[in-house]
Structures are given as structure tokens and as C-alpha cells.
């Protein structure tokens, strides 16, 4: 059918559009020349150099450390916040929710400069701590937003029943509520991690004194030309993520088959 052909072509073109720059990056990570646009033969030297490049490895370390720390902190903070906000009375709930929405709706550059103003006002030294605090600030709202729907779906009486049977509120939280909303917590945590790893704008304004992450490193490189080492690193990260995703995908598929869905 013609219709089907058009759909296939359209899908192909969109994916070509999405993946074209990624293919370029991967191809040029094997290019035996520093300049982009000229193909000078196959090499693996950028992969070798990657492991000698102290600056990039340091940036990589910072990126993952910040992402891990801000994911853990914002997931805990956000989960408790969601449970608390969910149980707040009317108007307070609305105010808290709207306040939580602000960083999501606002332009990231505005969030970035407002945090920069705060840190300057508090006379904090710009560096790792300010970067971490700002990452937690922009990640937590997403955790709250992904936990809230799960709380709405949960049976209200479940926690009450647990407490009627003698559970303390904390015990009910740990044994009943948290397991029930776990999928939301995991989604929120994954989102926080991805957002933190990919962030540039907020890190750019809220770091200092030689503390940089990969985005900042790449941004400064775009002025003097990207070092192909970065292409090599991205290729490795890309392949890593891909393998991880495929494994997760296979597993859920297997689970679905077993459950007979």
C-alpha cells in the first residue's frame, strides 16, 4: 500500500534527522585527523588518549559525582516532599505545588541566574558545592511530579489500615506507602540523573574555580575546536547506555511474556 510506504519513509527520515549528528560524532571519533570535515583514515588513538587526558577524566568524574549525589538527595527530598504535600490541606497544597512548578516552567537561564544571585548574596564560594545545590534544586521538582500521580492512584485507606493495625506512621510509610509508590520514585530518580548529566546552563552559571563538568568542558572547546577525545568518550558513553537499555528492554519483555501480557 502507498500509505504504508509513506509512513515508513517518514519514520526513516525523522530517525535519520535524529541520528545524523550522532553518526557523525561516532565516525569522527575514529578519524585520524584533528580537524572535523576531513577524513584521514581509521585510528583508535583518540580512545587511547582519552585515558591519558586528566582534564576530561576529571570533568567526567565531576559529572557523574554531581549526578549521583543530586539524584540521591533529590529523590529522597522529593519523595518525602510529595508524600507531605499530598497530605497538606487545600490552599497550602496549591501554593506548595505551584512553587514546585516554578523551576519546571521557568527558563533554565532564569533559574540559573537567580541561583547565582543567591550564592553571591550569601557570599558562598562558587564551585562544587554551589553546583551540587543548584542541581538538587532543579532536579527535585521532577521527582515530586513523578511521585504525586502514584500517590493519587494509591488506595487512601491502605496506610490508615496499617496504622489501625498498630503500625507507627513511620512504619506505615516504610512498609506500605513507599513500596506502593516505588515506580514513581524510580522514574523520578532516573529523570533527575538524566537531567543532571545533560545539564549545561545551570552548571555554567553556578560553578567556579576550575570545577567543570563535561558540558562546560565541551562548551569551552567549541571556541577552539572540539578535541576528538570528547567524541571518543561520547561514543563510549553512548554504547554503554545503549547496551544498558537493551538489557532492561529484554528483561521487561521477558517479564511481560512470563506474566502472559
Amino acid at each position: 500500500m502507498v500509505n504504508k510506504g509513506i509512513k515508513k519513509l517518514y519514520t526513516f527520515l525523522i530517525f535519520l534527522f535524529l541520528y545524523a549528528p550522532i553518526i557523525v560524532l561516532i565516525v569522527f571519533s575514529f578519524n585520524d585527523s584533528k580537524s572535523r570535515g576531513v577524513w584521514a583514515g581509521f585510528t583508535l588513538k583518540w580512545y587511547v588518549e582519552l585515558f591519558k587526558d586528566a582534564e576530561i577524566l576529571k570533568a567526567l568524574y565531576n559529572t557523574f559525582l554531581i549526578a549521583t549525589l543530586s539524584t540521591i538527595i533529590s529523590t529522597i527530598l522529593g519523595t518525602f516532599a510529595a508524600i507531605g504535600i499530598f497530605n497538606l490541606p487545600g490552599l497550602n497544597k496549591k501554593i506548595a505545588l505551584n512553587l514546585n512548578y516554578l523551576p519546571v516552567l521557568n527558563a533554565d537561564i532564569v533559574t540559573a541566574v537567580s541561583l547565582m544571585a543567591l550564592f553571591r548574596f550569601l557570599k558562598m564560594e562558587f564551585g562544587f558545592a554551589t553546583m551540587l545545590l543548584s542541581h538538587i534544586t532543579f532536579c527535585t521538582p521532577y521527582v515530586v511530579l513523578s511521585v504525586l500521580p502514584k500517590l493519587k492512584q494509591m488506595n487512601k485507606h491502605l496506610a490508615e489500615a496499617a496504622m489501625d493495625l498498630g503500625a507507627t506512621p513511620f512504619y506505615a510509610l516504610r512498609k506500605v506507602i513507599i513500596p506502593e509508590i516505588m515506580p514513581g520514585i524510580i522514574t523520578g530518580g532516573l529523570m533527575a540523573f538524566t537531567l543532571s548529566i545533560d545539564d549545561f546552563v545551570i552548571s555554567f552559571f553556578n560553578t567556579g574555580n576550575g570545577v567543570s563538568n563535561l558540558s562546560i568542558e565541551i562548551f569551552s572547546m567549541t571556541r577552539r575546536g572540539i578535541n576528538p577525545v570528547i567524541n571518543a568518550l561520547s561514543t563510549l558513553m553512548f554504547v554503554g547506555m545503549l547496551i544498558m537499555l537493551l538489557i532492561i528492554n529484554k528483561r521487561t519483555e521477558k517479564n511481560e511474556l512470563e506474566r502472559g501480557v
Partner: protein
Amino acid sequence: MKKASYPYLIWMGIFILIPLFLVLYFAFTVGDSQNLSTFQFSLANFKRFINPIYLKVLGRSVNLAVVSTILCLIIGYPMALIISKEKARKRNLMILMFVIPMWMNFLLRTYAWLTLLGKNGFINYLVTKIGFQPLDLMYNDTAVLLGMVYNFLPFMVLPIYSVLVKIDKNLIEAAEDLGANKMEVFSKVILPLSIPGIITGITMVFIPAVSTFIISSLLGGNKSNLIGNLIEQQFRWTGDWHFGSSMSIILMVFILLTMALTSKFDKEKEGGGGGLW
């Protein structure tokens, strides 16, 4: 249970509310940005902004953001529709393929477009092979637009897809049984039901598009200034935090107005708070 929210309420006060008030305070004062005691109330920053040079930049930013949002919608909607009609297995795989590019640093992906668009780039290589003159693709508004559509397309496709895939198939069958043709099924059933997804998509594309300064500085060259670039310059280079803050406030008001406008079309708003309006 509500006590669980207290730590975050305090956090929001310190890291969301106070910073915004600080920006507001900066916006309505002049003085030495580094010395609070020299601050004086003034509207000078806003007056300074009402100047053809700056207004033109704001106009350009809004214009590019609107065009890229529309392009994302036109390109993304059919894609979301096609994906939502696939079988579950293929559907999940296709959505995954939309998400995967986002896991590669977006600066790097945007930068890679230079290799494709450049004078000796891949696209021009093909164009000259066919026998045409090489095109001037880099460092202009078209390049910026392309960068925006490229970066923000998934943010349009994903929310629309997630609404489309939940539409009750019985509704479509019912419409068909009642004699609706394909066009009518789409315009009277599918499209109205997908409006919440469209609204989310529009906000998720428009906000980053109107405030970006990376895409314009990477693909637009030096001539392409957007409001995001102006704010960045004031804070990072010129050091006039007062003027920078007033521009941030203007940008914020602009975004909030757009949100208010789009949410008017979203009748199926969920109750119980959420959303500023």
C-alpha cells in the same frame, strides 16, 4: 504525614523563592552590582530595554521560538501518531529510539551539525555532487531553527504520543461504526482527545526555545543574538546584573503569559492543583 514536606518547603523557600525575589530586586535597582549598599530603586533597566536594539532581539527570539514550536508540532504530530498505531513491541522500541539521542550531550550533538552544514560539509558535498552550487547553511537563522527543531522535537513527540496511546480504541471504532471516514475520525475524535498532549508539547518546546543561548551561539555565529545570549552577556561578561535581571524578569513574564494563553485551550485540566493558573 504532612510534616514530611517541611524540609522541601524550607528548601523551596531558600532556593526557589528567595533567588527569584533577589532577581526581582536587582531588576528594579541600579548601582554597583557587587555592593548592596549602593543600590537605589529605579526603573532605568526597563527603560533601557525599550530600545529598538533590544526589542528587536526579543522579537527575534519569540519569532524563532514560535516558528520552531510550530515546526516541531507539524513534524512531530504525525510521528507520534504513527508510533502510537504500531504494535506494543515496535512502539516501545521506537520511543526508546527517540529517547536515546537525548542521552548524548546536547552541546556535542548540536556542534556536530556544523560538520553536516559547513561549506565543505556533508550536505554541501551531496548538493555539489548533484551539480548545484554549495549552499550557505551555517551561521544564520535557518541553522538556529534547525538546531532548535533537532533538539526539541522529542519534547513534542513524547507527550503527544503518551496521550495518543491511551486513547480508548472503542471510541475510534464507535465513530467508524457511526459512519465517520478517516478524516472525520481524526478531526473529531483523535485530535480533540490529544489536546492535553499538544499543550504539554508546546510548553516543553517553546520555553527552552525562547530562552536558549547555546543553540544560537553554536549555530548562529556572532550575528545571532537572542534574549538568552543578552542575559548571559550581562551576567558573565558585562557584569551589569541589574540589566540582566530585568531582562530575566521580562523573559519570565513572557513565558508565564504564553503558558496562561495555551492553558486556556486545555479544558481537560486535572483538578487538585498543578499548573500556575
